């Protein structure tokens, strides 16, 4: 089931209404049933995978506690089965295609097995989430749960099942286990998140997504057109993914849960490290805790650190999709981090930068991020090479005008997104003025503004929603 469908709206309203009539344990049973209904709505057989993954992780974690001497074996059971499923469904065709290409390049013609595998939506997200449970139990940071139901709810919790944010067991499981009470305040803030999420998806992401799709479908893009498409894609992917996160977080609040933030205005980042503190935070921290730090992190000198960063980002790229362009995208971001750090080591800043330098820093980082989005969006390596060598001086006048027009249009659709990011950033720089009471109170003027904003969001959705309904980008991962 997808968020931007009438089915989901009906489902979630009915679900929330019944949910709050139930006692805690029944709520969990209902959550489990609702989550499996949500996930199996289109392809019921996908449920076999998530149920298998959940059962194996539950048994592995219980086994680790029951048989500490077999701890490692249970961990391997969990790792191999989870990554085995992920690898088969996500990377089998990639592997076969590449082996075939290598053999063909070596002059060996072998028939390629034809097996087109449908990628179960959300498998990368729930696999990583489930893995965090068994790894944390293995590390002794979490106790294994006795209730299979609670673990199943943790893995399949429907608001964030398909595209995250990836939750840690230590954060979400206690919420599953603790009785929840309806909070009008949580419901209100959830409402705001959902309204903003739908606005970002239907008005911003889907409209600018059409521009990006059109440009990337061209066989002969020129400089201005291409970079207009990249700019549109940069907006689309942020609006789209953060919209999903907002709707997921808002829906969770309606159910009495809190999910972690996944975005912190990433296009206001000043440097690559700052960007990764703000973009897809739940995935970045997963890779940090379960890949980068176990590899040694920054503890063993600069060279080892650089190696660890590159490995982590390469895997992060591969996580996004079974295609070389994602690997390239991951490596590109890894290299950006390594180069920035090398620059800091070689040329340490003598004094703090002037505050106004923030603006070119943000702009520069946005350009670097956009180059990354070109690698991310363009799936053919030959096309990437062609795109990176396009000259601004070889564009016909029509293409130059078209590029500027499409950029302006993308900017126009996304003005609220930029305004929000700039507003938050400016407030971050300003000293805090609110006292603690503001955190738990709602002033009526503020409520009016919020209501008006929600109303405007609804009006914009009704009038400006895209005619082309696009799937959430991160569904494919």
């Amino acid at each position, binding site marked *: 089931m997808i968020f931007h469908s009438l089915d989901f709206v009906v489902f979630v309203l009915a679900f929330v209404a019944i949910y709050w009539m139930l006692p805690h344990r029944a709520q969990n049973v209902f959550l489990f049933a609702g989550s499996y209904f949500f996930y199996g709505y289109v392809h019921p057989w996908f449920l076999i995978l998530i149920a298998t993954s959940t059962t194996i992780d539950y048994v592995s974690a219980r086994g680790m506690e029951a048989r500490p001497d077999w701890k490692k074996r249970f961990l391997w059971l969990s790792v191999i089965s989870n990554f085995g499923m992920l690898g088969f469904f996500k990377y089998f065709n990639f592997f076969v295609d590449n082996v075939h290409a290598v053999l063909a390049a070596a002059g060996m013609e072998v028939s390629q097995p034809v097996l087109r595998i449908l990628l179960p939506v959300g498998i990368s997200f729930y696999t990583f989430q489930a893995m965090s449970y068994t790894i944390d139990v293995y590390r002794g940071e979490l106790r294994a749960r006795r209730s299979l139901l609670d673990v199943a709810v943790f893995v399949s919790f429907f608001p964030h099942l398909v595209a995250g944010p990836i939750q840690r067991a230590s954060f979400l499981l206690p919420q599953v286990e603790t009785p929840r009470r309806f909070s009008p305040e949580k419901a209100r803030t959830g409402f705001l998140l959902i309204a903003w999420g739908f606005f970002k998806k239907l008005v911003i992401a889907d409209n600018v997504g059409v521009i990006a799709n059109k440009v990337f479908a061209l*066989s002969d893009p020129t400089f201005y057109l291409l970079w207009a498409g990249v700019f549109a894609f940069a907006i689309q992917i942020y609006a789209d993914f953060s919209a999903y996160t907002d709707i997921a977080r808002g829906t969770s609040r309606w159910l009495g849960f809190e999910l972690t933030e996944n975005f912190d205005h990433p296009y206001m980042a000043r440097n690559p490290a700052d960007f990764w503190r703000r973009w897809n935070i739940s995935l970045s921290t997963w890779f940090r805790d379960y890949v980068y730090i176990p590899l040694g992190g920054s503890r063993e000198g600069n060279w080892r650190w650089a190696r660890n960063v590159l490995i982590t980002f390469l895997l992060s790229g591969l996580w996004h999709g079974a295609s070389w362009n994602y690997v390239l995208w991951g490596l590109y971001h890894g290299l950006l981090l390594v180069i920035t750090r090398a620059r800091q080591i070689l040329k340490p800043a003598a004094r703090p930068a002037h505050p106004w330098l923030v603006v070119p820093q943000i702009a520069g980082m946005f350009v670097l991020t956009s180059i990354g989005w070109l690698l991310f969006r363009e799936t053919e390596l030959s096309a990437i090479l062609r795109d990176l060598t396009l000259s601004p001086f070889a564009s016909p006048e*029509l*293409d130059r005008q078209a590029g500027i027009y499409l950029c302006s249009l993308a900017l126009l659709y996304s003005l609220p997104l930029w305004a929000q990011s700039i507003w938050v950033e400016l407030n971050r720089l300003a000293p805090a003025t609110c006292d603690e009471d503001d955190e738990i109170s*709602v002033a009526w003027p503020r409520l009016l503004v919020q209501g008006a904003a929600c*109303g405007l969001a609804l009006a914009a959705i*009704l*009038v400006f929603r895209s005619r*082309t309904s696009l799937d959430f980008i991160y569904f494919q991962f």
Partner: protein
Amino acid sequence: MPVTVATSPPASRGRTRSVAALWSLAALMLLVPLGIRFVNAGRAGGPLPPSYLPAFEGPRVRQAAFAAHRLPELQRLAPAYVVIGDSMAGTRIDERRLAELTGRPVAPLLHPGSGPAFWYLALKNWVIASGIEPRVVFIFFRDTNLTDVMFRLDEQFRWSLDLVAGDREDALNAVLAARTDRLLYQLHAVIEDTYQPDRARAWMEPALTNWPARQMIPSRRRRDEFFAGLNARFSFDHLRPMEAADIQILEDSQADFDRYANESALPLMLQDARRAGLALCFVRVQRRPVGGKPPRQSPALARYVEDLRRYLTAHGALFLDDTGDPRLTLDMYEDGDHIRKGARRLYTEIFHERLRHLFP
């Protein structure tokens, strides 16, 4: 004045206020969009005209006028053969080659991204309305498209119906009424009645998308030229071939002929053609071969095709199924189920040979 929530005593009072805040927020969200009505009221022009498919969509502005120029064109050409379809037909039939082979004129009535509703209206409002008497009208389709009247009626493609639809299309409307998701449609109608968003969209969307162009190119004439150039820049000739392009994913649930045939435009096509004395030939194209073989057909699809064949034959129409023809090899395909430009001629010759009895 601040409203304290849930924490300070008395808690019940705080909670009541929070509930009030929640309801106020919801109420404001529903009230503010009423402003769209006020903005619309300030615009000249009355309410939107009703759609020619009122069971399917609310009042709206046509995005294109009925392409009436097709009628005199067809009358002038007096084709012996008419080809109707989407890009499946467009990438397969080389009308000049077919005309050479048959020695008679051929009229292609093709529209990329079109579906059976478009094909039916093209037959009724162009071919039959023009009064021409072709020997055969070919209608190209893929798998179950012919009985899926909803295929390509979503907002992205629907506008193309404006080219072929009259002011009222009661027969098609009745078919769609049976297939439409009533809840979604009724909700849409309630929203339109309450807020008038479609009416606002009709003028606000062009205003928004034209605004940057107006700043860049103040001259209206040059702006129109710019938009024409922009559309040409993104035309099919400039698009890259993609293997995944326009490949339809077929669910077995759609391959239920008995369930969908009478809720489709197919009976209308057969009925109108019979009344006009036209011979129809439905051509099922072969989808992209996989692993050197024609694509696998599920038992449900194979049953569906047999049922379709029986139905068409019983109603006096002809049926040609390309699927399984060993001459239609993968190297003839470009992207998705499309045939590449260089192989159009070959496909047309194969097509002509298979239907030689129709081309005396």
